[in-house]
């Protein structure tokens, strides 16, 4: 009996709710004269405010977009970020140089080795340390693997956001294989802390070389399968072509770099413009798009994965012999056998572990091509054991400003697709 009453009550409630909602809809559909907001976008009805809130499905990261929508069309949007502000720059003022590597891992955590290597190169530039060729080639291999890993996530998640979960599952397996290669090199899967100031901590072991060769053999097939699923897929193309385009002038004015800028037609790549770590020895192309829309960004990232494979192949074929670390005992831990026997090695070991390395006074800016663009490190040292000021030039932070402009006038589903094609990673956004 009580159930029947409860049921009737709930039915009545839902009927009332429906009635109330439809009343609102009637008000919304009445003949209201067209209004224009100050940017010229025309809207007829009352605007709805939709909170594309900090908690997103499918782990893009946490940032909030408050959208003003006219029905399904977006009129304007306002962004709030900072939900994962971890104060990296302030922490870095307390840590000796080699302890900051673990912080850089956690910025763009989909491609940690690139952040690590970029930081090591910045400090090496400050200290004036020359890295031997073999270490540079190993760094290139690891950075390109990280770039492939980053693009795997971005393109896979773009597929998931358009509804295609299969592509993501197929290609994510390759990321697990890249994790195995990382584990051979440094022991960790995701936040790698790879390399040291002055080179790499260990040489490429035979297992690592075997795994990289196996990766080069099996990844092309998977990538081709992934491309067959998406590149000429009618549904996917309808969702992403001409969605979220940005012109090259606007992109440059906003400070875009990386695949987002290359999709808009500007071929700016830090690896080519300011080569670092022997990138000038390798032959690779830079894929460039035309209209800067989501499809171009997707295709540019796919093509970059092919180019990264080329670079890894060349680096592995031409890997020079030699030490994997620089002969700079005051910055790179001397081998343990030396420490037990030799007095200077003991002193250097003690000084490095205590963090008392002699850093010159100066300021240096070094940029590397991260998965999302120009990742810059601005380091000011005052001669002490920790930096005086360290600033990260984070590409995600800079290009995410353009999001309201890119999704103006489009529908909500387009806005989601644009956000995932821009590859916004919250760790890098807030730092």
């Amino acid at each position, binding site marked *: 009996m009580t159930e029947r009453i409860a049921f009737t009550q709930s039915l009545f409630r839902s009927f009332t709710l429906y009635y109330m909602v439809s009343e609102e809809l009637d008000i919304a559909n009445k003949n209201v004269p067209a209004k224009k907001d100050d940017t010229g976008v025309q809207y007829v009805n009352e605007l709805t405010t939709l909170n594309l809130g900090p908690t997103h499905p499918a782990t893009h990261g*946490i940032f909030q977009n408050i959208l003003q929508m006219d029905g399904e069309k977006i009129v304007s949007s306002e962004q709030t970020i900072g939900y994962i*502000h971890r104060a990296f720059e302030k922490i870095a003022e307390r840590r000796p140089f080699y302890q900051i590597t673990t912080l850089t891992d956690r910025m763009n955590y989909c491609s940690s080795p690139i952040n690590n290597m970029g930081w090591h190169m910045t400090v090496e530039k400050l200290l004036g340390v020359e890295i031997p060729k073999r270490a540079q080639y190993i760094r290139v291999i690891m950075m390109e693997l990280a770039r492939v890993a980053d693009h795997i996530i971005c393109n896979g998640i773009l597929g998931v956001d358009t509804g295609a979960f299969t592509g993501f599952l197929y290609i994510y*397996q390759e990321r697990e294989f890249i994790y195995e290669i990382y584990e051979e090199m440094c022991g960790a899967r995701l936040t790698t802390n790879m390399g040291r100031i002055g080179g790499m901590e260990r040489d490429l072991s035979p297992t690592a070389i075997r795994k990289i060769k196996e990766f080069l053999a099996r990844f092309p097939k998977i990538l081709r399968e992934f491309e067959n699923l998406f590149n000429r897929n009618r549904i996917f193309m309808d969702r992403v072509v001409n969605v979220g385009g940005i012109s090259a002038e606007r992109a440059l004015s906003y400070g875009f770099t990386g695949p987002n800028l290359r999709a808009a037609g500007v071929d700016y790549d830090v690896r080519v413009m300011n080569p670092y770590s022997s990138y000038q020895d390798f032959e690779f192309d830079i894929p460039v798009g035309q209209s800067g829309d989501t499809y171009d960004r997707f295709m540019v990232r796919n093509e970059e994965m092919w180019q990264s494979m080329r670079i890894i192949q060349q680096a592995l074929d031409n890997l020079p012999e030699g030490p994997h670390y620089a002969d700079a005992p005051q910055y790179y831990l001397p081998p343990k056998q030396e420490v037990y026997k030799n007095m200077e090695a003991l002193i250097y070991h003690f000084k490095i572990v205590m963090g008392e390395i002699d850093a010159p006074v100066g300021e240096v800016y070094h940029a590397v091509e991260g998965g999302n663009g120009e990742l810059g490190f601005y380091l000011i040292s005052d001669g002490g054991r920790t930096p005086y000021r360290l600033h990260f030039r984070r590409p995600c932070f800079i290009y995410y400003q353009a999001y309201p402009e890119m999704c103006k006038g489009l529908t909500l589903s387009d806005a989601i697709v644009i956000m995932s094609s821009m590859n916004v990673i919250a760790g890098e956004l807030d730092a």
Partner: protein
Amino acid sequence: MASDIKMVEGPESYNGAGFQATSFDKLIGLARANSLWPLPFATSCCGIEFMSTMSSTYDLARFGSERPSFSPRQADMLLVAGTIAKKMGPILKQVYLQMAEPRWVMAIGACASSGGIFDTYSVLQGIDRIIPVDVYVPGCPPRPEQILDGVMQIQELAKNESLRRRNTEEYQKLLNSYNIQ
């Protein structure tokens, strides 16, 4: 073909032709433990390891978490993976409040458990400052096997929980200490 699929054993019961007599909490515990729907509250790096846990190699679906629900109203367990900043704290609490009982919370990673390496002005030093946590999975980030171990611990909790636990005074006192009514 079905020989190496591990089946869960039924609870102790008095069986007969067409009937089985057992106690409710054993049956309901069994059902709950093997169909926990997670709410992935993935913030940063641990979220990527959580994605690895969900995908094919370390499949989370075989533990019953086939449908990661992003709506708190339909989820059983809240997996907080990643750093929670003070700005995010109220939102996490809101999501927790929207979940229906019975609900379990798992803090994945060092940042969610205790603030991790970020002892700064902007990071909440552990989510147990704002919501009650059942299982902590340490690591930075924890391997997917560790996350699965955490899920298995929650399964143990769910299986052995008494049906009246959420209405007991002890539980109410716990919630009140977090200002949750």
